[in-house]
């Protein structure tokens, strides 16, 4: 990710394409152009944090007051009866989800 650096205040098309790939989204050329401008604008917003004064000690605010208070770790059987409703791609025979083949073999 060397191309992504904070000194770049102008976002190029290549970066937008790279971000979209990471996000598993496919952008049209038009969308890509919009996001170039949009990301550049966002950097200005993010740079508002540059003036933040963090010179004093920050007391950490532990939200988890009950971090050790976990439920008992007991093995349980998973009920798969409802999964067919949740996903039409669940294969009852293999008990896996069907997806397109993603390994290509030489003899194919």
């Amino acid at each position, binding site marked *: *990710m060397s191309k992504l650096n*904070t000194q770049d205040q102008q976002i190029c098309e290549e970066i937008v394409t790279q971000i979209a790939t990471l996000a598993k989204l496919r952008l049209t050329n038009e969308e890509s152009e919009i996001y170039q401008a949009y990301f550049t604008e966002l950097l200005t917003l993010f740079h508002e*944090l540059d003036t*933040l004064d963090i010179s004093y000690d920050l007391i950490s605010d532990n939200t988890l007051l009950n971090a050790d208070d976990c439920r008992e770790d007991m093995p349980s059987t998973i009920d798969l009866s409802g999964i067919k409703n949740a996903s039409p791609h669940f294969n009852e025979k293999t008990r896996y989800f069907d*997806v397109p083949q993603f390994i290509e073999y030489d003899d194919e």
Partner: protein
Amino acid sequence: MNKPLHEQSLKELSDALQSKQISSTELTESYLNRIESYNDALNAYTHINKEITLAQAKAADKTIANGNGHILTGIPLGHKDIFCTTNMPTTCSSKMLENFHATYNATVIERTQGIGMPTLGKLNMDEFAMGSANENSAWGRVANPWNQNHCPGGSSGGSAAAVAARIAPAATGTDTGGSIRQPAAFTGITGIKPTYGRISRYGMIAFASSLDQAGPMTQSAYDAAMLLNTMCGQDPNDSTSSNIAVPDFTAGINDSIEGVKIGLPEEYFLKGLDPECDLKIQDAIKLLQKKGAKIIPIHLENLKYAIPTYYLLAPIECASNLARFDGVHYGYREENISNITDMYELSRENSFGDEVKRRILIGTFASSGSYSAEYYQKALQAKSVIRNDYRKAFSEVDVILTPTTTSTAFETANKALTPQEMYLSDIYTVTVNLAGLPAISIPVGFAKNGLPVGAQLISNRFCEDIILRIAHCFQSETGWHTQYSDDFK
């Protein structure tokens, strides 16, 4: 009985049910009839199933008849379509989850249905809870009952519109940056976001896990207190739910507010706030002063960092949480694809709406490469700075009062507002989520355009009782919360 059922508070409905003046079936049927009459105008509900709802009402009647009823048994409730339900679809208002049936119920659903509150239906929302106008729903926009050319706010816009039009006695919502309080303010109802950890997030589809919190949306603060009693509490299925004891929120709600110190942060009343909203809030402050509250000017000087901080942290968490929607295990899958990359990318591209895609891309952008070190860490520091501001403030005052929103409800499809401008309108609500605090929005009057104005009360962590007490005191003296649009009478 003088008032029609749909104008009655939860307490009044509870009394009528427990004394058997009405049955849950009658009450539920009357709400289902109102939904049939008015939902087309609002698009608040995305899914109803009369058969299931009436079966639940019948079961509630049996429970009451057997003497095993809870105070809320038999009162039907609308649920934001972000809570997983096994017997109704859970779509998060996204094409991605069209026809999705969860394999389990969210804890909020279990708790409310468990005490016999029938589910009226699933309520419209901004897709995956991302939006401030409820215009980002795959099932269409929701209208504001006070003026259907205006939005009800978001993301819990369906919940807010349903309660405001009295087509639900109460509803559930969720709040990541103001999604309960802003629509409550825009529609003239009461909405509370409890302390982070008060209510289990199990089965609540995640947007930004460190900020998301469920809460009730009701006609009044008293109704909110009654629902909170049921919704709150530790859940073994959510390790971030708190083990702090849940008080009876209705117990001290009638106590006087004499001597309560209310802080007014100067930064919240500067430019950007609509003068008419300001005026209504000043009237509310005067009333609270008359009831014995002490008004103290305070400073929350780091408010200016709220928007960049929120719009860094929330999208980063969103990008991570929404990575699971890839068409493999559940949700939309693009047909006629030949390889796995196409399946991932086209399934996501063709089922997520524009706002969701925008936030996923912002989150991926801000957490990529050196941007992560530069911005994400800074945003985390800013979050601590904002929390410290509140900590200091609560050493001087008991409660903080602010406007909930900068203006009344936006006009529908307000093209004048860019996404950035829309984000800026969340300025008064997002800091509360960043600090994990509880806050309530209550109606304090109407602007000249006929739209409601809301005020926000914020308290220290796990001190919901004090904001409920002040809100109830205000509502005992005013009638703003009892008003609803003539179009739905």
